[in-house]
C-alpha cells in the first residue's frame, strides 16, 4: 500500500505507478548523497534550516547589542566589536535570513501548491543553496577572526572605502552581497519559471493561490532590485581592491552614487521580504476562517501595486542628504501612496475574518499579532515618509523601531505562523499547540516591550548605530526596558524553536491534511513522497480542495520511468509538453565551491576573478554535459552564464 492512498488526486490501486515513481524520483543515496541532492523538498528543508541558523546567530548579535546598550557607558562590547556586531546583525537579517527564508519557503511549498513534481532547474536550486551556506559561513568565520565588516549593512562610502576602512573587513561585505545575490537571483528565476510553466492543468493565472501570486511578484522584484546592489558592491570592491574612483569626490566620483544604487535595491528589499509574508497571511487567514480571502482581485492588484510603487521611493532613505525639494515631494507622495495597497489588504483580511469563523490556532494567532504590530509599523512608515518629520526621525532609534515593526511585525510574525502551519507538510508531524500559544504571547509581548520604547528614544534624540551613550542623555531607563523586553522576546523564540525541534521527532502524526486546507499542497501525503503527486491534479477553482476534489479529473500519461514534468501554458495552464528534469548530481556543489573560492580569493587579488571564471566555466561544462543516452541535461549553456 502506498502513502498516497486516500489523497484526493490519487487513483486507487495505482501501486505499480507508486513503485516506479518512487524509484525514478529517489533522492541521492550513497556516501556523497548530501552533496548530490537536487529535490526541492530536501533542498528547501535545508534552505529553511540554514536560514534559521543564520537568524539565530543574527539574533544572538542583537542580544549582545541590547546588553551593551542596556545602561549608559556599558563595556560589554568595545566600539570596534559593536560596529562589527551591528553590521553583521544587519547583513545577517537582510541578506542571509530574510530574503533566503522567504525564497526557501517558496522552494518547498510552491511546487506542491501548484501541483507539480519538481521545481524548475533543480540543480541550479542546489547551487543557490550552497551559495547561501558558504556566504554565511564566510561572514561568521570573519566575525570570529575579528575581520567582520564594520561599516554598517548600508556600507556608505567614503567610510567603507579604502581610505577609511583598513584591512579586508568591508571586502567581506562586498563578497557576501555577491554570494547572497547570486543565490537569491537564481532562486527567483526558478520560482518565476515554475509558476509560469508548471501549474497544474486548470490553474489559470486568475486561479493561482495568493501566496503563489506573492512569490511571483517578489521574484520579479528580486530580478530588478538585486542587480543594483551587485553593481554597487562591485564598485566598492573595485575601489578597495584596484583603486578605482567611483566614490572618491576628488577624482570625479560621488559618495551619493552609492546611496542611490544601494537604496534602489534597499527599499524594494523591504517589500521583497514583506510581500511573501502577505501571501502567507492570506493562506493562513483563509484556512483558519474557513472561507476564501475576501477580494481576490483587489489583493492581487495590491501586491502588484506595492511592487511597482516599491521601486519609486528609494530616495525616501536619503531625505537628509540635501536633494532638490521638488524631488523630495515626489518621493514623499510615493512613500505615502504605498500605504494604500497595504491598507487594502489589511481591510480585506479583516473582512475575511468578519465573514468567516476564526479559530484561534497558533498560526492564526501569529497573523492577528501581525496585523496589530504591522499597522503600527505602517503608520510610523507614513511618518518617516514625510520629509520634515524624517529630518528629525531619520537615523534615530525611531527608525530602528519602525523598521523592526515592519520587518518583524510584517514578516517574521507571518513567517512564524507559516512555519507552524506548514510544519506538518515538512515533517509529517504537528507542532505542539500549547507551546505554540505560549511562544506567541512571549514573542508578542517581548517584541513590543523591546521595540516600542525605541520610538520614544528616537524622539528624545538617540541616534542609531552608537555603541554607547552618556548617562546625562536620559536614555538609560528606556534602553533598560528595551533590553528586558529583548530577554522576553528571546525566551519566546526559544520556546518556539524548542517546540519545533521536539515536534520534529515527537509531534503528533499529521496526516495529509491536518488543517483542512484549500490548496494543493494538502492533497499529498505529509511529508510528501519524492514524486509529490501520484497523479497530477486538475483544478477548477481557486480553492481546489474545498470544491470537491474527488470529482475533479486527474492527469495520466506522464512517464513514471523518467523524471518527467508537465509543462503547461503560462496564462491558462493548458498542458503543453512534457519535459525531463535531471536526477542527483554533484556538479552544483562543485560549482558552488568554485564560485565560493573565487569570491573569497577575490578579497585579496583581482586575478582570482579571471582564474575563478575560467575554472567555473570548466565546471559548468561538466554540469551541463548530457549524462546518458536517456537522461538529458536540462539547461543550455547560457544558464551557466547566469550562474557565473
Amino acid at each position, binding site marked *: 500500500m502506498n502513502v498516497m492512498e486516500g489523497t484526493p488526486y490519487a487513483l486507487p490501486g495505482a501501486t505499480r505507478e507508486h513503485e516506479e515513481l518512487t524509484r525514478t524520483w529517489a533522492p541521492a543515496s550513497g556516501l556523497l548523497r548530501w552533496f548530490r541532492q537536487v529535490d526541492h523538498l530536501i533542498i528547501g528543508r535545508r534552505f529553511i534550516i540554514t536560514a534559521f541558523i543564520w537568524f539565530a546567530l543574527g539574533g544572538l548579535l542583537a542580544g549582545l547589542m541590547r546588553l551593551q546598550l542596556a545602561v549608559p557607558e556599558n563595556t560589554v562590547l568595545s566600539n570596534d566589536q559593536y560596529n562589527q556586531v551591528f553590521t553583521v546583525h544587519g547583513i545577517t537579517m537582510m541578506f542571509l535570513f530574510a530574503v533566503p527564508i522567504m525564497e526557501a519557503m517558496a522552494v518547498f511549498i510552491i511546487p506542491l501548491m501548484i501541483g507539480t513534481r519538481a521545481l524548475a532547474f533543480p540543480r541550479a536550486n542546489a547551487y543557490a543553496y550552497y551559495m547561501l551556506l558558504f556566504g554565511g559561513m564566510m561572514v561568521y568565520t570573519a566575525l570570529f577572526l*575579528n*575581520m567582520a565588516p564594520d561599516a554598517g549593512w548600508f556600507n556608505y562610502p567614503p567610510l567603507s572605502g579604502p581610505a577609511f576602512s*583598513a584591512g579586508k573587513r568591508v571586502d567581506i561585505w562586498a563578497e557576501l552581497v555577491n554570494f547572497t545575490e547570486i543565490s537569491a537571483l537564481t532562486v527567483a528565476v526558478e520560482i518565476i519559471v515554475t509558476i509560469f510553466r508548471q501549474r497544474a492543468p486548470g490553474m489559470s493565472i486568475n486561479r493561482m493561490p495568493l501566496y503563489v501570486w506573492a512569490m511571483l511578484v517578489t521574484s520579479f522584484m528580486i530580478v530588478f532590485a538585486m542587480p543594483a546592489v551587485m553593481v554597487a558592491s562591485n564598485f566598492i570592491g573595485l575601489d578597495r581592491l584596484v583603486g578605482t574612483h567611483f566614490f572618491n569626490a576628488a577624482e570625479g566620483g560621488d559618495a551619493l552614487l552609492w546611496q542611490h544604487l544601494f537604496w534602489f535595491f534597499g527599499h524594494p528589499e523591504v517589500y521583497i521580504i514583506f510581500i511573501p509574508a502577505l501571501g502567507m497571511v492570506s493562506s493562513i487567514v483563509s484556512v483558519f476562517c474557513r472561507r476564501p480571502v475576501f477580494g481576490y482581485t483587489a489583493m492581487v492588484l495590491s501586491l502588484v501595486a506595492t511592487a511597482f510603487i516599491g521601486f519609486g521611493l528609494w530616495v525616501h532613505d536619503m531625505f537628509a542628504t540635501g536633494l532638490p525639494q521638488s524631488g523630495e515631494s515626489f518621493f514623499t507622495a510615493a512613500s505615502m501612496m504605498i500605504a494604500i495597497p497595504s491598507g487594502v489588504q489589511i481591510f480585506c483580511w479583516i473582512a475575511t475574518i468578519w465573514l468567516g469563523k476564526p479559530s484561534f490556532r497558533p498560526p492564526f494567532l501569529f497573523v492577528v499579532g501581525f496585523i496589530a504590530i504591522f499597522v503600527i509599523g505602517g503608520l510610523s512608515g507614513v511618518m518617516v515618509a514625510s520629509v520634515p518629520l524624517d529630518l528629525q526621525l531619520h537615523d534615530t532609534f525611531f527608525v530602528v523601531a519602525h523598521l523592526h515593526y515592519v520587518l518583524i511585525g510584517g514578516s517574521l510574525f507571518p513567517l512564524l505562523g507559516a512555519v507552524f502551519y506548514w510544519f506538518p507538510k515538512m515533517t509529517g508531524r504537528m507542532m505542539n499547540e500549547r507551546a505554540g500559544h505560549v511562544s506567541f504571547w512571549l514573542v508578542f509581548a517581548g517584541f513590543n516591550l523591546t521595540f516600542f520604547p525605541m520610538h520614544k528614544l528616537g524622539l528624545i534624540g538617540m541616534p542609531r548605530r552608537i555603541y554607547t551613550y552618556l548617562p546625562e542623555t536620559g536614555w538609560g531607563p528606556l534602553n533598560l526596558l528595551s533590553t528586558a523586553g529583548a530577554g522576553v522576546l528571546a525566551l519566546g523564540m526559544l520556546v518556539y524553536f524548542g517546540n519545533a525541534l521536539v515536534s520534529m521527532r515527537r509531534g503528533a502524526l499529521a496526516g495529509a491534511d491536518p488543517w483542512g486546507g484549500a490548496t494543493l499542497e494538502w492533497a499529498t501525503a505529509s511529508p510528501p513522497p519524492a514524486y509529490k503527486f501520484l497523479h497530477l491534479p486538475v483544478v477548477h477553482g481557486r480553492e481546489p480542495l474545498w470544491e470537491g476534489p474527488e470529482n475533479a479529473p486527474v492527469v495520466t500519461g506522464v512517464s513514471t520511468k523518467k523524471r518527467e514534468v508537465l509543462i503547461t501554458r503560462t496564462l491558462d495552464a493548458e498542458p503543453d509538453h512534457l519535459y525531463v528534469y535531471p536526477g542527483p548530481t554533484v556538479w552544483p556543489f562543485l560549482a558552488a565551491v568554485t564560485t565560493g573560492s573565487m569570491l573569497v580569493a577575490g578579497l585579496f587579488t583581482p586575478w582570482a576573478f579571471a582564474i575563478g571564471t575560467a575554472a567555473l566555466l570548466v565546471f559548468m561544462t561538466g554540469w551541463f554535459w548530457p549524462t546518458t543516452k536517456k537522461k538529458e541535461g536540462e539547461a543550455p549553456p547560457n544558464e551557466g552564464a547566469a550562474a557565473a
Partner: protein
Amino acid sequence: MKRLLAAALALIAILSSCEREERRFREMPAAAARNNTKRLVSLVPGPYTPDVRVREPYGYNAYAIAEGKRLFTWYNCTGCHANGGGGMGPPLMDSRWIYGSDPENIYATIVEGRPNGMPSFRGKVPEYQVWQLVAYVRSLSGNVPRDAATGRNDHMQVRTQEQSLPDLVPEKEPARQP
C-alpha cells in the same frame, strides 16, 4: 597527517587575519611612551645599531599601516617626501635606502633624524605612531604583505595605490656586525 596539516594551515590563516585586522587603539604604556626618555650615544664604533625595544610591531597590521598613512600627511612628511616620490627629501617608493630598509633603521631615521635635512621627531611623535609610520613607509616600497597595505586615498591621485605597488627588493645593505 592530512588533518594535522589542514589544522595547521587553518590556524595560520586565523592568526594572520587576526594580526592583520586587529585595531589596537590603546597601546601599552611602553609603546605609547615618548621616545625622549633615553639618549643615544652619538658616537658608536662600527656599523650603526639602533636602540630599539620593540621590533616592528605593525608590519602586518592593516589598521596601523592605514594610521601611518594618515599620519604621513598629518605630520607633514609629504612636505619633503611628497607622496613617496620624493622632493626635497629622498623618494620612499624605490628600492634604494640610504640608511637601510629594516624597520629598526627607518624607526631610527624618524626618531633621530638624519644629516642633510631629515629632522628628528624625538619627543614629537609618540612611539607607537612612529612604528605606524615605519610600517606605512615600508609599504610604499612593497615591503609589507599586500593584503595589509592601504588602498587608494580619497584625494587627487598622484600615484598607484600602495596595495598595487610592485614588490621591490631592497639594495644590498652592508652586512651587519653581530
